[in-house]
């Protein structure tokens, strides 16, 4: 199974590079598309889903961008493998949990992912590290154009691209950035920020998309409307607000360092301490502590740790990744023990060699 090879890499969105990557983890654009001559997925029969899947897979394989893609038959994957793809943000939770024929095509960089038979027949996603919405948009446009040459996307002259849910109709575009905003959380300004985002019709979600809780101070900001504005306008709408949020977060970090230096230093050091010594630890706590450490590294309070490493730990300590790395299925308790072991090993390796066993 080729999924194993993915455990060795960390994927585009965790690379920790790109503009403003101290705060902006990744920039993502996705397009929802449907084939005009089939019912939408939820209404399609088992046979029709298989036909749609084959039709799209074959067409995508014969366009230039499709040739370098790796196909994964999600419908035949074990649950742990589907979960693994969700953790890497290559498929959505809905796609993982759905029924029937469905697949995903991804490129080696893990920038492009094409989900077939999610809520819509085709969901094209393009993800770049750091703040690079424009780059992600330019790339997805090429992918979409090439596929459209061979696939008659359902289109209505007035309503635009037709989608299974009216919330996506029109452009079918969702533009989002994932931000790390620990200082705004600590200084309790985050709710205020979110309220003002809602007022300009931007949505805020947690790390793993719709309905997910914000974990470890990671938040996704995205457009809420898809009709009545052009794709460029919607890219700008999200893009325009990001520098403002970055500025807020930077100021909150400066405030923390200036006014509560000892306190912050203490919090960050304790978080680091727990990660390096815990014997059993949950995914949630790990995420929360890694978030603090990430901020500590950014503020120069912790040396010797790279941001890319923290990012990588964020995903590798997730349940499916942990089990893949260990090479066996583990229950919750065993996972917590294994996670703690993995973290200890990771941090010890960077410092003064192996610490003594206690």
């Amino acid at each position, binding site marked *: 199974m*080729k999924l194993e090879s993915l455990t060795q890499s960390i994927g585009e969105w965790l690379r920790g590079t790109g503009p403003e990557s101290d705060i902006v983890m990744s920039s993502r654009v996705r397009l929802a598309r*449907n084939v*005009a*001559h*089939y*019912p*939408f997925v*939820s*209404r399609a029969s088992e046979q029709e889903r298989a036909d749609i899947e084959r039709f799209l*897979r*074959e*067409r995508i*394989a*014969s366009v230039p961008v*499709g*040739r370098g893609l*790796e*196909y*994964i*038959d999600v419908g*035949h994957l074990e649950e742990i493998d589907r979960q693994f793809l969700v953790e890497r943000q290559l498929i959505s939770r809905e796609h993982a949990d759905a029924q029937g024929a469905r697949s995903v095509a991804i490129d080696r960089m893990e920038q492009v992912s094409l989900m077939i038979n999610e*809520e819509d027949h085709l969901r094209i996603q393009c993800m770049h590290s750091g703040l690079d919405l424009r780059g992600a948009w330019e790339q997805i446009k090429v992918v979409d154009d090439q596929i*459209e*040459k*061979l696939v*008659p*996307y*359902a*289109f*209505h*002259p*007035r*309503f*635009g*691209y*037709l989608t*299974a*849910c*009216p*919330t996506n*109709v*029109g*452009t079918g*575009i969702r533009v989002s950035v994932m931000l790390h905003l620990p200082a705004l959380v600590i200084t309790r300004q985050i709710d205020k920020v979110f309220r003002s985002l809602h007022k300009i*019709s931007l*949505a805020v979600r947690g790390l793993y998309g*719709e*309905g997910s809780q914000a974990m470890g101070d990671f938040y996704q900001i995205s457009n*809420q*409307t*898809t*009709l*009545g*504005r*052009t*794709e460029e306008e919607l890219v700008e709408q999200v893009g325009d607000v990001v520098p403002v949020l970055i500025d807020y977060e930077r100021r909150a970090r400066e405030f923390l360092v200036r006014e509560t230096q000892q306190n912050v230093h203490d919090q960050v050091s304790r978080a680091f301490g727990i990660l390096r010594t815990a014997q059993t630890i949950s995914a949630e706590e790990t995420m929360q502590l890694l978030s603090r450490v990430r901020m500590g590294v950014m503020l120069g309070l912790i040396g010797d740790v790279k941001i890319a490493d923290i990012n990588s730990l964020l995903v590798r300590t997730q349940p499916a990744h942990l089990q893949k790395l260990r090479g066996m299925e583990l229950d919750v308790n065993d996972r917590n023990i294994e996670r703690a072991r993995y973290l200890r090993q990771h941090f010890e390796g960077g410092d003064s060699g192996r610490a003594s066993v206690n």
Partner: protein
Amino acid sequence: MKCQQCDKQAVFHITELESGAVRELHLCEDHARAYLNQSGGEPSQGGPEDAEEATPAAGALGVGQTADELAILDQRACEMCGITFFEFRNQGRLGCPHDYVQFEKELEPLIANIHGATEHTGRRPTRANSLPEGTEDLTRVIGLRREMKEAIALEEYEKAKEHRDAIRGIEDRWVVPSEPPPSVADDRGAEGGPA
């Protein structure tokens, strides 16, 4: 059905669609009024016919309709995929592209409510062979396929053949042949049979 807030008969059935999540409300007249008033006094973006219930929620589905009116609307079905309006209200997902034409009048206030607009201004497909932009013509295939299946079930093979030919005719115009993919590595696991 009883009102969700009291013991009276529910006469208003409201489906709220919020970023993909569906919430259903069944309320008596009094509670429905209270609910609608509490959702604010901004002008409706729906058509002039719902002007009296001028709240954003009134633009959503089913509001301002009596149970009887809604029951009639609920039974309307798409000519192509067969989904009823009731099924859509329940699932929050449409059945096929033709629903946007079949239920256009009902969907328009909902779309206006979600997006604050009803007119797509973004990218549009460019089509070869002087095909129209809209794909309504191609979407007819969904209905034809259904009729073909029904004809086969009734052993009306002549009719089924007509449908099949009609489907082919439409698809030939719309679905351009793709060049054979260059040896696609087929990653699919053992199809069917137990491992």
